[in-house]
């Protein structure tokens, strides 16, 4: 059923009895052209674009738990495209453009809110690095502008720009088109749109093995609901990528770390934009519901526990209280963790694997929510044709052999 004010009104008179499920619980068929492992935002958007743009219908998304329950449910929803390297600029900007029309394309309000993402500099080195981003982005036609501390304060009145603090703000790079979106709506919206096009979404169905034929090529996946055959399998399992690829005998350049976030109690609007500081490790925005959404750093060790240490959040809140001293009396309401798949160069891996028919889309680490749109789109193209989409091509697994890394980490330390 189409979502609109009118349909809402009509249902209001019908006691909301007429709404249909966003997606149906599908039972697995014996064989699909493409099986996607992992119903996070990326997996679901891949399925949606496969169906909507590449005309494929015989597709399943297999999810071990509830869809959108991985990092999609856990992220701080920062969306921006002002990355440093051309390859990154291409994929994140592709994604950003898709965000701008996503609500209408999917017919669900994903609340994409381009309220501006401001990245703070605190010293000469930060300034240099962020200005390099500004220049690189401008060259690529991506909006990013440099603000003086006073301009930064005008944009975000909560910000402390006194120069006598431990890490004074020396300036900021602002991408006005950056912002946030409602993470759950994104997952549900893609699921709804994909299901409407005939994609089977199979929840509570963990993939436990990847079956390969005599020629080594993929035949399908073993799951908690039995074997599911497939011509091509796309693994989109974020923090669990290593575990899944191990099933096919492929060792990945990935480590899985706990990444924490927290929200405050809800209050009336206080924070108009997203602000982040890589130097002192904190970032913050305020959701439409009113809670401050704050991201912390990763723990230092690998873990699959979706929980991290208290000292990590403490460190983040120290930084938040320095940057925004008016938040000191705010209260942390809930803290949680996700498992992020971190690559050596902090850039994703999209494309083929050494196993014929097996494709992977992973390594988005601490910053892949913003690419949910574009990643799904280029991965769908890759799965449909069997060859990497041009935007995806540089993000091949092979780059680790040749050394042609896309090192966003070296350039900017963190990337949310």
């Amino acid at each position, binding site marked *: 059923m189409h979502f609109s004010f009118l349909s809402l009104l009509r249902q*209001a*008179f019908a006691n909301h009895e007429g709404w249909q499920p966003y*997606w149906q619980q599908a039972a697995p068929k014996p064989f699909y052209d493409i099986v996607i492992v992992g119903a996070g935002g990326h997996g679901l958007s891949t399925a949606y674009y496969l169906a909507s743009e590449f005309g494929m219908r015989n597709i399943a998304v297999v999810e071990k738990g509830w869809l959108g329950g991985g990092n999609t449910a856990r992220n701080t929803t920062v969306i921006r495209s002002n990355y440093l390297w051309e390859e990154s600029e291409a994929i994140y900007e592709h994604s950003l453009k898709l965000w701008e029309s996503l609500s209408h394309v999917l017919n669900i309000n994903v609340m994409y809110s381009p309220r501006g993402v401001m990245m703070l500099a605190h010293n000469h080195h930060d300034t240099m690095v962020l200005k*390099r981003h500004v220049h690189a982005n401008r060259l690529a036609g991506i909006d990013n502008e440099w603000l003086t501390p006073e301009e930064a304060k005008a944009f975000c009145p909560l910000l402390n720009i006194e120069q006598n603090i431990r890490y004074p703000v020396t300036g900021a790079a602002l991408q006005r088109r950056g912002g946030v979106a409602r993470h759950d709506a994104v997952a549900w919206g893609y699921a709804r749109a994909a299901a409407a096009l005939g994609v089977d979404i199979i929840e509570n169905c963990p993939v436990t093995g990847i079956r390969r034929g005599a020629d080594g090529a993929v035949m399908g996946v073993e799951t908690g609901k039995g074997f599911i055959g497939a011509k091509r399998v796309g693994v989109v399992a974020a923090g669990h990528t290593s575990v899944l690829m191990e099933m096919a005998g492929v060792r990945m350049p990935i480590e899985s770390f706990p990444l924490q976030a927290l929200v405050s109690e*809800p209050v*009336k609007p206080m924070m108009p934009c997203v602000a982040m500081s890589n130097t002192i490790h904190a970032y913050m925005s305020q959701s439409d519901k009113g809670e401050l959404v704050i991201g912390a750093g990763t723990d230092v060790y690998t873990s699959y526990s979706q929980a991290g240490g208290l000292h990590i959040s403490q460190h983040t809140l120290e930084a938040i209280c320095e940057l925004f001293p008016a938040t000191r009396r705010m209260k942390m309401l809930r803290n949680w963790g996700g498992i992020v798949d971190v690559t050596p160069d902090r850039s994703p891996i999209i494309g083929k694997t050494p196993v014929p028919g097996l494709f992977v889309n992973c390594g988005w680490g601490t910053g892949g929510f913003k690419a949910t749109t574009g990643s799904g789109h280029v991965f769908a193209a890759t799965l449909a044709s069997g060859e990497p989409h041009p935007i995806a091509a540089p993000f091949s697994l092979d780059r680790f052999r040749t050394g042609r890394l896309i090192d966003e980490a070296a350039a900017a330390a963190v990337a949310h």
Partner: protein
Amino acid sequence: MSGFRATSGGRFDRARRVSFTFDGVAYLGHPGDTLASALMANGVSLVGRSFKYHRPRGVLAAGAEEPNALVTVDRGPGRITPNCRATEVELFEGLVARSQNRFPSLGFDLGAINSMLKPLFPAGFYYKTFMGPAINGKAKFWNRLFEPLIRRAAGLGAAPTEPDPDAYASLFAHCEVLVVGSGEAGLRAALSASENPAVRVILCEMDHDFGGWLLADPTGARFRDEAIATLRTRPNVRLLSRTQCFGLFLQGFVGLVERVTDHLADPAIDAPRERLWQVRAGRIVIATGAIERPLVFPDNDRPGVMLSSAAHILQGRYGVLPGRAIVVATATDAAYRTAFALADGGARIEAILDRRDHAGERVRAEAEARGIRVETGLTLLGTTGKKHVTGVSYAPMQNQDLRGPSQVIACDTLLVSGGFTPTLHLLSQARGSLRWDEPLSAFVPDKVPENINIAGLASGDFPPELRGAALGLLPGNDDKSALAFVDFQNDVTARDIRLATREGFRSIEHVKRYTTTGMATDQGKTSNINALSIAAESLSQSLPKTGHTTFRMPYVPVTFGTLAGAYRAELFDPIRRTPMHDLAEKRGAVFEDIGLWKRAHAFPRAGESVKAAVQRETRTVREHVGIFDASTLGKIEVTGRDAAAFLDRIYANPVANLAPGRCRYALMLNEAGFLIEDGIVARLSDQRFHITTTTGGVGKVLHLLEDYRQTEFIDLDCFLAPVTEHWAVIAVQGPKAREVIAPLIEGINVAADAMPHMTIREGRLTGVPCRLMRASFTGERGFEVNVPADFGFFAMEALLARAEGLGGGLYGLEAMHILRAEKGYIIIGQETDGTVTPHDLGLGWAMGKAPRDFIGKRGLARPDLLAKGRKQLVGLLPDDPAVVLEEGAQIILQHEPSTGIAAQGHVTSAYFSPNLGRGFALAMLKDGRNRMGEVVTIPMPGERVLARIVSPVFLDPEGRALHG
């Protein structure tokens, strides 16, 4: 009329009074009251408005589980705290509290119109609308119109706007046993654990008084008082009241937060507002009790509807009766006891309406004896009233069907008891698990980590009177029209949950996120089980199969400031200063942060701009001599039989063949082949090296050296120690450098041929030991004087006095940067970004020709690191000599447009050089070394700057100034 103070009962200070205001109206209460009890005593029952529908709300509960009674406490500028639970706010003289989320007033709230439009606001309505037509494909209506409106409407209390002036403390603590909760179970656990004086016990209680339920129960008071008295005599016991355990982590790590001054009218100036206790406990006893659940039926949220246990506590602890004409609706016997207690306190119990077919015999008999009307086997159908309950309607039930017509009983208070839920959030946090206990209708402990015990009600070991449950929407109600609230704060109703399941949200996690049930500031303490039960029912599956959502820390919200503790302002990170800092300060230095260090950026004189000072200092060094504090440079001493062999494997340059007394500029790569550090390797003697690193890099380098020393090159015998801080370093650079140092140096022949460039000698500087290095980061003749740090200040003063006599002076970091850039010397982190190899920088020669293994050697041989067209270090001269390029600016070809194309490279360093009389820059440029003389474009906002590619060495390419 509702709520009043009975003439007897309670554990507060009846003799004294305190005054406070709520929404500007003054009231009186007593010390020992909470804001909630004092408001109730004053007959104030409307205390808040709900999140979505702005429904009038009163106090529901008695403690941290309170969802409704949220207020803002105002202690003056910067000390305004939103979203405080009135049930936890202790009264003090002059307390100012305000209701929230209402306009213009609590009594008349325009937002209540939402309540009339409620058919339009079911769960998730915002996902379905507010998009408007797409404009250029974008959701402009959402961004410009709807989102701002929604943001303003959402949120609870007003956001703080001023910096919070209060201090927050923090302590690490250790104990053998930590007991959480001071009810009967907690007290007993603490008593028995602390019998052994060697066992350190911490008992924490989030309430302002110890005793839990015992405080409300006159028969329990004696045990409580004796237990506390005994515990106080034991030196191995720490009693912490007002202290919430908010998080249980791994291996007995526990977070407690103590409210230190919020309850005081006039806190001591030095007292912290709250204190964080980070406890490591050998064993943890969770004695957190149980929380009562409300009943779910239409209009169950009116002020005057209250949990039975809360009313009991209100009466028992505060001597306050919630009303005069009370109806008790229950599924447990415990609520009968509440009824009796209230009756004893002077209230009239209109009826006890029991959901069950049979009440416990003892309570039934006692009710009869007291003449209280009891009706069993019935359901509730609604309440009447507007801003306060005036009556309750109910009907008898047979199985799931109504057995008769509905009836209404008039009352001013409705107490509800839907059963109890053991408080097991902490167990879940510590990765224990829960299991559904059907007879108890509650989640009880299942797998309990071996260092945890669960005691009292939390364990699920309920006395018979607390058993019994009415889960979910009470039968006889269809959820069509009225609002039967499940999550009071977030206005989630039974029908919202059913709608969610109808729309395909089958996982309880989906239901939570779609309806927001359990996501409010109370995190569903009173509502989660009802929500779960409604979801299970409408999914036609069992409750355990439906499962519960994840419990996360904190148990109750914790102040940011408390978690940040003392780490604010200058304590946020340590500030490191060199031994010569004061000297720089005296000379007017402007400082710059480099890592944790404060370094002198420049030394502007009176009336001189920083820029001008930098130019002057840069000139001074080339023309005369400059003095520079280089103490922050990392220094590591490496000794031992195999020190040389070890460093030879570490550095990309061969260093084993370095003769004692010689220095070498050396590069450190990572195993991938990228440059990560540079510095000087100086060989003091056969088995002793003094190496330097960048200021920020020394920690990383030490870590790396120790790694290879301890785990990789274990065949080599050597030892390393950080000596950065033992040596103060004064760089003396410029044509007159030797003149400056010569008279002060003893025991070293500093003549040009005796001590050429890149040598090190040990001797004395005016009597103190000195390591003198002949090295230069400016391209001028240079010495680096290392003296033990205690002597740094006066050594620098002495050297400066000499330099000034020769026309020289101090120079700062910025001048140093210009000087080195004029010579094409790189800075790690400026010319490099982790993707640069020595070859890229034209430093390939440094690696020598002889075959040897070193870190990064194999990495350097990977295809892409050898590929053609990599970016290489070059110099740039802007066409216009006055122009200084911007660091980070991109470089494109002259004919290319300013946007939409790939860059050729970027500017890494750019300055105005007084020595060149023009702006100049270093850059990393594709294939740069083959492009000398080419003109490139640097697009800047609104303009295009042209620059010529030149060698990165702008001055003295033969290096003549270095020598001699």
